[in-house]
């Protein structure tokens, strides 16, 4: 008996699909439930941030970065202010540097918590999502007290930060650290030890370090393959060289390793926050910077370790108060490139598991 001929079906996963995390559209060809071809189509959200930046003064660009990777606005802020400060060779007060580190690492932590929650939601479990969001809420409250926003935090300025921490804020963060550590144990018990979860993620969406490097992947997607690369360690910026923390790497580069990297990075961020709280000196939080910022003519590139990988800022300046051209290297966009290869031959259910583990934010894909 010959093989039964089957017909392939074209399906659009997104842009309104609940698991495409925004407005991604993946056009997939499926044979039954098996994907034979996948093509991510991006551009539905495109806000034109880079183009808009050409008409904005450097300080005015900061709130636009809030909206790129809206789960880690503080990190985005850090990227742009860091780039301008480097280009202008500005001095930052010590206290402001520490405040930046505290908020950036807290932001990394909550972004990872959102990953944890939404990833499990993708896999059909709702409870971890609510637990993760309950914990995230506490950090969101910290940010709310600090800068008045709950999502698009606008706290950093070129030359420092907008305000010092309100009274009791640092103490409350200090109390939060051990609580969050205990919560991580709970998450491991609830999720990591679950046999169904392990069956769904182990060995799925696997790629090696060479492939990741060839596709210019960065962040957890790269580190999960076992490649040790973290800008905070390899090309230290700000005051990261003052802290003792580990770069978390995986072994197999599968969805499970990416999940574990997220989980362990939360603990590392807590470690950094704890040390920053111990070391933070008294003093001003804003340096002396000119009222109108003019970046000397030339080309500058500066990058920070974003939540999802290397977040780079490339400035072409003509020496004016606005950039001639501004380009963001957005890790989510870069990381998404490997998706078609990862999806080929996988089942529909794995599509969601793989896409979720790549951990993209569409605001960053379509900035």
């Amino acid at each position, binding site marked *: 008996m010959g093989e039964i001929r089957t017909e392939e079906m074209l399906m659009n996963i997104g842009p309104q699909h*609940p698991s495409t995390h925004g407005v991604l559209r993946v056009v997939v060809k499926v044979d039954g439930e098996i994907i034979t071809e996948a093509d991510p189509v991006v551009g539905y959200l495109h806000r034109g941030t880079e183009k808009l930046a050409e008409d904005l003064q450097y300080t005015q660009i900061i709130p636009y970065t809030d909206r790129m990777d809206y789960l880690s606005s503080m990190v985005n802020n850090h990227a742009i202010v860091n780039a301008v400060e480097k280009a202008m060779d500005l001095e930052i007060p010590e206290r402001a540097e520490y405040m930046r580190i505290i908020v950036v690492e807290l932001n990394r932590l909550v972004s990872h918590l959102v990953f944890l929650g939404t990833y499990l*939601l*993708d*896999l*059909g479990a709702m*409870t971890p999502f609510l637990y993760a969001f309950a914990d995230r809420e506490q950090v969101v409250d910290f940010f709310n007290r600090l800068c008045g926003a709950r999502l698009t935090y606008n706290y950093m300025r070129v030359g420092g930060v907008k305000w010092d921490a309100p009274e009791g804020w640092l103490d409350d963060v200090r109390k939060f650290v051990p609580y969050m550590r205990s919560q991580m144990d709970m998450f491991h018990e609830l999720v990591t030890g679950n046999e*169904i979860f392990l069956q769904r993620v182990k060995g799925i969406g696997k790629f090696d370090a060479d492939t990741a490097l060839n596709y210019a992947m960065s962040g957890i997607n790269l580190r999960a393959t076992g490649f040790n690369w973290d800008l905070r360690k390899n090309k230290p910026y700000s005051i990261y060289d003052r802290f003792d923390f580990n770069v978390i790497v995986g072994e197999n580069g599968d969805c499970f390793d990416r999940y574990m990297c997220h989980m362990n990075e939360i603990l590392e961020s807590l470690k950094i926050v704890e040390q920053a709280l111990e070391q933070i000196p008294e003093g001003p939080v804003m340096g002396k910077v000119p009222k109108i910022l003019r970046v000397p003519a030339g080309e500058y590139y500066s990058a920070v370790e974003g939540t999802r990988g290397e977040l780079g800022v490339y400035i072409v300046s003509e020496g004016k108060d606005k950039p001639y051209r501004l380009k963001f290297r957005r890790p989510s966009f870069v990381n998404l490139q490997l998706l078609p290869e990862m999806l080929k031959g996988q089942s529909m*259910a794995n599509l969601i598991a793989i896409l979720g583990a790549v951990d993209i934010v569409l605001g960053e894909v379509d900035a």
Partner: protein
Amino acid sequence: MADFFSWVDKPLDTHAVLNMIIGAVVVLAFILGVVTYSIYFQRKLIGWMQWRIGPNRVGPLGLLQTIADVLKLLIKEDVVPEKADRPIFLIAPMLAFFPSFMVLAVIPFSANHVFTAYSNVGVLYYIALSAMTIIGVVLGGWASNNKYSLIGGMRSAAQMISYEVPLAMSVLGVVLMAGSMNLVKIVEAQIAFPYVWYIVPQFLGFCVFIISATAELSRTPFDLPEAESELVSGYNTEYSGFRFAFFYLAEYVYLFAMSGLGATLYFGGWSGPFLSGWIWFALKVTCFIFFFFWLQATMPRIRTDQLLTFAWKVLIPLSIVNLVLTAVLKYLLH
């Protein structure tokens, strides 16, 4: 009361038919109440497990929330997709619902089994009829003219047919022990000497039963036919308003029916000391329902191939082992 509704061994005259109709309406009203408050129970329970409050606004303690939800569903616009296979699309939810209601005919709610049939093929009737729901689900998925729905429908066909086998085979262990397929007699056999509920001698069978039942009910971790994160709700994506409510209703009636079947087969049905039979039955059914909801709060979703592999390579061999062990046990005891 019991006498009024007792139509067993009586000629089928107008009076008997009328009684049957009244009985059916009473059971339907009862089951609608059960479904309403199962949903409320689910939302409260899972809310508690997820650090939330659950319904607490409509009526005292939110007790009227589900009723408000149902009313809302009933008055919603009846949307039928333009390119759907209209007649099949319209009839599918009913096809899914009817068997779920009909299986209740053989579940003995109490010692007097007022509204239920004293059928000598009760178990077989339940298994056979519950399989009919697959048709409604598959047709609904097919007729929607939606690719997610189609995959959802196909998944549910594969899933329900696969799990029907270990479910039926696990139940055979009980049938063998009791020597009857009559659910009332199965309960009575558990009450008789040595007064041991079948959960003890049939523990392996019970494990297979409870897993298969979870899959049959399409509940977490086997909720693949309506995987909202993969298939945008699956076979019922295009359904809205009261047609969606029918699918939903079928799901929750089955939840009750399957819990009732589990309580009857393995936990002695209505039997228990001090309290009335129906209270014991209700308590046992509630425990089963609690278990299904609890699973929902703790488990992620399994993948289709893993699901099918699990049914054919793990559950079916286990149920065969259970059947053989039961036969040996039965032989040794007699």
